[in-house]
């Protein structure tokens, strides 16, 4: 599989690196902090890694799918099986992944919804109200005490001592007098955190001017609560400017601590509720990307797996010498026939051929052995027994018959041997038109009554073993000549034509005659050994022709035309070097 011009090995390395990266990032995501905000912080980078892996993998898988579809449409051998396997494996991964994704999303949403459970929210609100009501009483006490103190403040004389006394009597942490310009006039305080002891803001002073009092519950830096009360010192005036009294009261540390805890939990709960939907989206997106990535990897893996499964089958088909048959490229296989069926047929055909070859070898050997002594014995009888003329004639006649029949048997043995033995082909670039022309010339001299013709197609040189193709032409022409014996105006025509299928080029040779044609009983298995309609024929001619054409990765077919027979041969113009000598 080549994608983006990368070699399959590089793509495999890239995919392996992506798988490793994704697994590491997912593991990091899995073992990251449970805090959603912490998770989100690292989630982006981890998701980015997975997203990048996804985006790299997507075109690789898309190109693989495209190639697979293309091969499938072109009905290339192996594509159908590969397509089916990839579809099956992808489907096996896809269906559970989708089911798990929707279940996981559903459970996750339910889990997140528990956060915003109405009972939890009400419980927290009640806890807050309880705490507030406990403190409201303390605030009102503080306001009452501060108002009382403010009434008693009438001038700057001994103000420090007065404030100190009132602070202690009322258990205040601090009492301060402030004018409307926010200047501190007097102050009395216990040991306090510096941040808690502050001058009121002009806003707070304005509020006091409007409402006659200002109370607030302030939280300190050490997570404690303070009650702040600000009232006007109504009986106190300085340069006719209004004066304000600020008092700070402590809250019981235990109550403070519990209040802080409840408030923190409530705030955290509120924040999670506020982020609930985007957190759901975030988890769903993460899960989606992970599932998509896993799916893409599964689909890619299924292609690879299917590829590995199909490759040995393809190799087996090559061994049975069928894979590169032009028939598969020029004419499609039947719909119900997949690669396994083709393989079985190829294998059966190869076995059958091998069996015939073996039988032929044995027969040739077994028949050849007794032939020599039979022939020699007949010759010796012919020489020794020469008594009367009548006997001599009888003996001569008998021995001649024996010797002739031995010759016939020798021819048969020779034909067997030719069929059984497969020589290594010697491919050379040949002008097939010239080869046919030379063959026709030879035959036309011997058979002047027959009209031979050649229709030359525009062919380039093709790679063939010219001796073997010559043998094919001889056999076919002999058959046609025999078939035309009883024909008036016999005519044998050979036509050549270039053909193309995909990127491969082929040469089509069609031999037609106006002879008797093939008998209906043998046309179906004419290429099998010992099938003949000729008197005295051995039935090996077409079997040898078929064997030679197969060795050329070609195809041969026969049919009867309106008048006579037609034999079509398709030969590839180039021979794959790796397939030579198979």
């Amino acid at each position, binding site marked *: 599989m080549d994608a983006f011009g990368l070699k399959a090995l590089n793509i495999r390395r890239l995919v392996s690196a992506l798988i490793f990266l994704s697994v590491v990032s997912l593991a990091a995501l899995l073992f990251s902090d449970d805090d959603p905000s912490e998770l989100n912080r690292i989630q982006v980078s981890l998701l980015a890694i997975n997203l990048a892996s996804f985006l790299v993998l997507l075109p690789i898988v898309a190109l693989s799918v495209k190639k697979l579809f293309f091969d499938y449409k072109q009905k290339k051998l192996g594509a159908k099986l590969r397509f089916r396997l990839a579809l099956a494996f992808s489907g096996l991964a896809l269906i559970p992944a989708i089911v798990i994704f929707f279940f996981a999303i559903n459970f996750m949403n339910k889990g997140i919804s528990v956060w915003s459970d109405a009972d939890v929210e009400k419980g927290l609100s009640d806890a807050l109200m309880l705490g507030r009501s406990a403190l409201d009483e303390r605030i009102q006490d503080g306001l009452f005490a501060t108002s009382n103190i403010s009434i008693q403040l009438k001038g700057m004389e001994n103000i420090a001592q007065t404030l100190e006394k009132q602070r202690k009597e009322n258990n205040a942490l601090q009492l301060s007098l402030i004018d409307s310009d926010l200047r501190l006039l007097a102050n009395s305080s216990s040991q306090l955190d510096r941040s808690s002891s502050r001058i009121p803001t002009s806003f707070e002073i304005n509020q006091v001017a409007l409402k006659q009092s200002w109370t607030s*519950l302030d939280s300190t830096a050490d997570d404690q609560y303070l009650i702040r009360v600000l009232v006007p010192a109504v009986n106190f005036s300085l340069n006719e400017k209004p004066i304000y009294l600020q008092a700070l009261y402590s809250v019981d540390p235990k109550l403070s601590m519990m209040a802080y805890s409840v408030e923190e939990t409530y705030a955290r709960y509120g924040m999670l509720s506020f982020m609930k939907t985007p957190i759901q989206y975030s988890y769903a997106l993460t899960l989606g990307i992970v599932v998509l990535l896993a799916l893409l990897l599964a689909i890619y893996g299924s292609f690879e797996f299917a590829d590995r499964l199909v490759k040995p089958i393809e190799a087996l088909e090559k061994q049975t010498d069928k894979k590169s048959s032009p028939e598969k490229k020029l004419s499609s296989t039947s719909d119900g026939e997949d690669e396994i069926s083709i393989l079985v047929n190829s294998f059966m055909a190869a076995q059958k051929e091998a069996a015939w070859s073996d039988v032929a070898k044995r027969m040739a050997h077994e028949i050849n052995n007794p032939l020599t002594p039979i022939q020699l014995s007949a010759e010796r009888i012919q020489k020794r027994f020469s008594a009367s003329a009548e006997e001599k004639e009888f003996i001569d006649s008998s021995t001649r018959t024996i010797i002739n029949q031995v010759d016939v048997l020798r021819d048969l043995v020779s034909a067997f041997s030719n069929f059984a033995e497969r020589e290594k082909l010697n491919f050379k670039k040949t002008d097939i038109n010239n080869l046919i022309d030379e063959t026709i010339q030879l035959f036309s001299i011997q058979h002047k009554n027959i009209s031979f013709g050649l229709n030359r197609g525009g062919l380039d040189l093709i790679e063939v073993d010219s001796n073997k193709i010559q043998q094919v032409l001889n056999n076919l022409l002999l058959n046609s000549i025999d078939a035309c014996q009883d024909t008036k105006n016999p005519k044998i025509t050979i036509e050549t034509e270039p053909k193309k299928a995909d990127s491969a080029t082929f040469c089509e040779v069609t031999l037609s005659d106006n002879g008797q044609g093939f008998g209906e009983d043998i046309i179906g298995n004419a290429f099998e050994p010992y099938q003949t309609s000729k008197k005295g024929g051995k039935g090996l001619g077409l079997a040898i022709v078929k064997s030679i054409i197969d060795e050329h990765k070609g195809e041969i077919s026969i049919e009867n035309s309106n008048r006579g027979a037609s034999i079509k041969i398709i030969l590839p113009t180039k021979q794959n070097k790796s397939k030579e000598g198979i």
Partner: protein
Amino acid sequence: MSKKLQYSATIVLILLLSGTQGFAKGGGGKSYVRDGVYYSDIQLPFRLEQQQIEALDSGVTLSFQLDFSIVDVRSWRIDRDIGTLSQAYSIRLNAFTGRYSITNLNIGTKFALSSTQEVESFLSEIKNIPLVDDSILDIERNYSVIMQASITAEGISQWIKTLSFWRQNLDTEFETIEWMLLD
């Protein structure tokens, strides 16, 4: 990926990212010297968006940050930075007190306000921010103060803000304002 698809993806990403951020125009500032230190008073159109109020009421803490930059304004040359300063406040609702708590993160003081209007009013006018000691400045030169203010939702990552695309203006960026340090 085709160029058209790449452009579309970029635009969608920008829209998603920008969707969480609002923009506020206006505001001004002035500076004055007191006891050898330059102080500034700032006026800002501080308004909390509805989503920000909802976030506050839900328990989210908002961060309000003022970034000051004091620049030596030079003719025919690039201005020179004298120094930078940040003033940060956190705003959150204390569910227990029911008040919005504003903490000056620079000095730790806390203010408790009863409504978001009070918060807006409080942070619309910020006074007495110490900027720079006059001893490091040259009285003959021109200095300007550039201030950039922003509100951001704390504890919510940009990722979650992006996924909260239906919520507008969770963060606010204020228009940069500039005034002369010495008038």
